[in-house]
């Protein structure tokens, strides 16, 4: 009997762990992808998202130029965005940009200093893509789900 209870408990914990982990990762203030209101694809694939933030995909499917906005490397939201949404460590992302910028084969994303500025820039720049803490999103920018 005791053994059965223990078994049941262990099973519950094992089942709940991933849910707890997901709940933690997708907490109320985890970053989300935002785009300018003119840009309205239904969703974006992870590959395309990585290519855009890797500064290698310069146009949307409708050929509008992509304009990438990021926060500073040492901003906590940038770090969470980079690790959880792109699955790339921030220092790897910086290296990828540097390799383009210092070999003349690409450009760096536009750096903004705060989430307010991020929201403002993405709202007013055609073709813009960026990210925000979920609580910072308002109706001036579009939230883009990642497939």
């Amino acid at each position, binding site marked *: 009997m005791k053994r059965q209870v223990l078994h049941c408990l262990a099973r519950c914990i094992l089942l709940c762990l991933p849910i707890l982990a997901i709940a933690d990762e997708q907490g109320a203030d985890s970053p989300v992808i935002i785009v300018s209101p003119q840009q309205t694809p239904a969703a974006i694939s992870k590959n395309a998202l990585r290519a855009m933030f890797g500064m290698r995909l310069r146009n949307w499917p409708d050929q509008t130029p992509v304009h990438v906005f990021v926060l500073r490397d040492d901003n906590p939201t940038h770090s969470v965005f980079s690790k959880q949404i792109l699955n790339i460590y921030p220092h790897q992302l910086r*290296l990828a940009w540097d390799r383009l910028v210092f070999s*003349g084969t690409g*450009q760096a994303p536009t750096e903004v200093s705060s989430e307010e500025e991020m929201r403002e820039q993405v709202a007013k720049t055609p073709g813009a893509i960026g990210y925000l803490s979920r609580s910072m999103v308002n109706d001036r920018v579009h939230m883009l789900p990642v497939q």
Partner: protein
Amino acid sequence: MTESICSQSNNSLSRITRIGCLACWIMLYSAPLWSFDFAENLQFHGFASQGYSLTSENNFFGHSQNDGSFDYTEIGANASWLPLNHLQLSGQLLFRRAGETQPGNLLLDYGLLDYTLLSDETNRWGLRLGRVKNPTGFYNETRDVAFTRPSILLPQSIYPDSIRSLSLSSDGLSAYGERRTEYGDFFLTLGAGYPQAIDRELEPFFFGERLPGTFKSKLSYISRLLYEWNGGQVRAAVTYFKANLDYNSSNAPFPSDVPSGSLKIQPWIFSLQYNAEHWSLTGEYSLRNVNSQGFGQPTNTLSQAAYYIQGSYRFSPHWEALLRYDVDYADRNDKNGKKLAASDLFGRPDYYWFAKDWTSGLTWNIIPEFMLRAEYHYVDGIRWLPALDNPDLNDTSRHWNLFLIMASYRF
């Protein structure tokens, strides 16, 4: 003869610089006439690094014994502009000082037009025309930018500074392709062009001293296939480079010059890297055939081998430590250099033909724009010791210690 070549290249350099300046002025002055997009698609970036080297024996980048040397500076500034979404124009000026080998020259590091023919979610294909960086191994394209290197000195076996001009860039055409798949991303580059051949570097490396003749590069080829899995968690690359060079003798009798000849330097480089959140493991292995014809000698091919293995650990976003073992053999069938030394026209010692380097280093990223780095090398052999800093290679030590510090700023 050499002087006139130097002044010629200085003239062409100043011409390039003048055209570059003029273009910059036109761009700046006409900026208000362009739409808002103009300024938006124009970017300026740069870096400045100052190094200090101290050696127990031998000289590295200046007179580095006793009090050490500050003769190690790297400054670069670049501009890039996207007049159209598929067209990028970019150029970088580089000033570098590294002991006697490079007393301080300004050169056009790259200057190119990049046209993307096709770009969508899974593909990107295009062409680059002009002076294009040579994509060899993991680090070569941005070898002079301290922030993109794992250490102050790149592993000299795969990225020798002693013949760096050859590997810097080529004047020609290059085609590139990117393919993103669910199994990872593939990047292919194929190029043909003329690498730079700077006498001041090449002559001391191949002949042990400056000679009155001149090196000239011939059409050379480069290709690299790079694979990245999971946004760069695993990176793997294969590079093949075929650099062709002619040496045109001044026709003075030896020992003041050697007869004309040609060199074909053909490295294969295999690169592999694993990146975890806090640590990275990197290894590169190179097999390099160096074929020489002429020079008053029988035709000869050396099979060179070079490799390094490197681990780095990030304690925090601000601190990173590095450990590396780096090996370079001028002839993999003569690893102790005895046979090469016995038949060498210039009488260089056996330990000239190899180098084994243990490196440990520490990086402090104070802010994203500013970094301090220190590293210590224990080296057996002088394969990549700059000959111009050590005019008598027989008066060098086989075992030597090298300590380096570098401060680097970027924007």
